[in-house]
């Protein structure tokens, strides 16, 4: 039986008014501007862009402000906004070999063309709270060095020359698009990569960690991690040629993984790939490990039943907006559902004679 119930409008309106007040906090404290969030909480902004799957730092900063810093709520706002945007086209695939690298490191090769460039990293900090940041202070300008990095080729290119690593052969198959077609199994790699790049960072990290701990272990090294700006080119139909429409910052991780070889393939290294909007290093490494684990079938590896090998499990649970939508809906009114459950439990207890037993005990 469906029972329509009305009520609560005033309570909802008042709750939202209070939310706005709590969001602002103590009015004695200066209000945060969107530009402050964009510039000073930029890694939060990057995460919201990556998982919101929309590159726009100002919108991500606005979403973080509106969501009171709840990043999943902010991602939800961005996902909702992006559905309202008319699609003007699709870009050419970005060329990460052309990246203007802020950071570029390899855990596998010490001396590589372009060198080990640390960039603005938390690595090698002592993870001690810096109380100087609690006081106002000028930041000294970062040192510069008059040195051209020159070409910064991908690390896997060196291994390719010896045939020691699998190739990623050029291909122009149009990829499926998760934003146009619902996710269906089996999911080809292009679809998996699209789902993983916008997947929840925590979930992806946990799965990647599980592969390191032995659930579908694939012995990953970070062959290369690079962060920097790449131009985005798009074909303009009115012109008949492609132009750069802007520039985006990306984090790319290529893992080099052990592979013992199979009946048809000699022993060689295999690869996992992570590419994520913004400076999002933990996510990009995690993505590469999970991508590699999901490739077990094409590489002829055993399915050991590990969660990270199960594409359906991974992809259907990696999206934090789907997950939180379903999870959080159970707090909304289910009065009628629960009423029927209540009646069922009472009936079962009557049939089992539970109430009589209790009466006898009294």
């Amino acid at each position, binding site marked *: 039986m469906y029972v329509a119930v009305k009520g609560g409008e005033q309570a909802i309106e008042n709750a939202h008014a209070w939310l706005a007040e709590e969001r602002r906090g103590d009015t004695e404290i200066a209000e945060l501007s969107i530009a402050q969030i964009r510039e000073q909480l930029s890694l939060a902004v990057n995460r919201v862009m990556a998982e919101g799957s929309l590159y726009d730092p100002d919108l991500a900063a606005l979403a973080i402000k509106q969501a009171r810093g709840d990043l999943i709520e902010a991602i939800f706002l961005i996902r909702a906004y992006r559905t309202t945007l008319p699609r003007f086209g699709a870009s050419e695939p970005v060329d990460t070999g052309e990246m*203007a690298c802020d950071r570029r490191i390899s855990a596998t090769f010490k001396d590589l063309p372009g060198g080990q460039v640390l960039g603005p990293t938390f690595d090698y900090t002592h993870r001690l709270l810096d109380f100087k940041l609690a006081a106002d202070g000028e930041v000294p300008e970062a040192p510069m060095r008059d040195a051209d990095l020159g070409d910064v080729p991908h690390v896997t290119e060196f291994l390719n020359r010896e045939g020691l690593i699998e190739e990623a052969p050029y291909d122009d198959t149009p990829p499926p698009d998760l934003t146009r077609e619902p996710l269906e199994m089996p999911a080809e790699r292009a679809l998996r990569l699209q789902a993983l790049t916008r997947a929840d960072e925590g979930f992806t990290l946990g799965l990647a960690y599980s592969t390191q701990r032995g659930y579908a272990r694939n012995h990953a090294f970070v062959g290369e991690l690079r962060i920097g700006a790449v131009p985005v080119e798009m074909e303009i139909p009115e012109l008949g040629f492609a*132009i750069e429409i802007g520039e985006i910052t990306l984090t790319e991780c290529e893992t080099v993984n052990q592979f013992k070889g199979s009946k048809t393939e000699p022993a060689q290294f295999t690869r996992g790939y992570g590419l994520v909007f913004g400076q999002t290093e933990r996510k990009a490494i995690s993505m590469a490990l999970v991508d590699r684990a999901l490739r077990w079938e094409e590489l002829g590896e055993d399915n050991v039943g590990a969660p990270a090998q199960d594409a359906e499990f991974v992809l259907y649970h990696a999206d934090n907006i789907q997950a939180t939508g379903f999870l959080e809906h159970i707090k909304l009114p289910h009065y009628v559902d629960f009423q029927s459950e209540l009646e069922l439990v009472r009936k079962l207890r009557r049939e089992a004679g539970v109430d009589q037993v209790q009466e006898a005990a009294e």
Partner: protein
Amino acid sequence: MKDGFDANTARKAWMSLLARAPEGRAAALLDTAMVRPAFTWLRAPEIGGTMVGARAGATGAPFNLGEMTLTRCTLTLETGEIGHAYIQGRRKADAAAAALIDALMQTDAAEMLRAAVLDPLQDEQTRAKAARAAKAAATKVDFFTMVRGED
């Protein structure tokens, strides 16, 4: 045919430069250089998105990485030249300035605009890129080998 190719290359270069310009910068340079001529919108500035592509393993099969916001518009000058703009972000005023510059670059004003708008924009972008590259270079590790301990 070769002329057409060169013209496209030049146009691609300035349209790309305008798309990468920081907020308000192209408009400010244009307004310093000249009074904006009259024009008619063929497509008023509108905000949308584009799907950014990438390749698995950087060189392999393409996949969809995510979307980015984009503003586009098209206008025509009274003398008939058509200007287009496709620029990153939600920036209608910047798109309007970029489309106007694109149209004007097809007129006699091209040389003046190159000197007053495009060259300064290019210089600023080159300097900003160089400063970032120099900061990155300062974080490049110089290895030195310690005495090895095997013997």
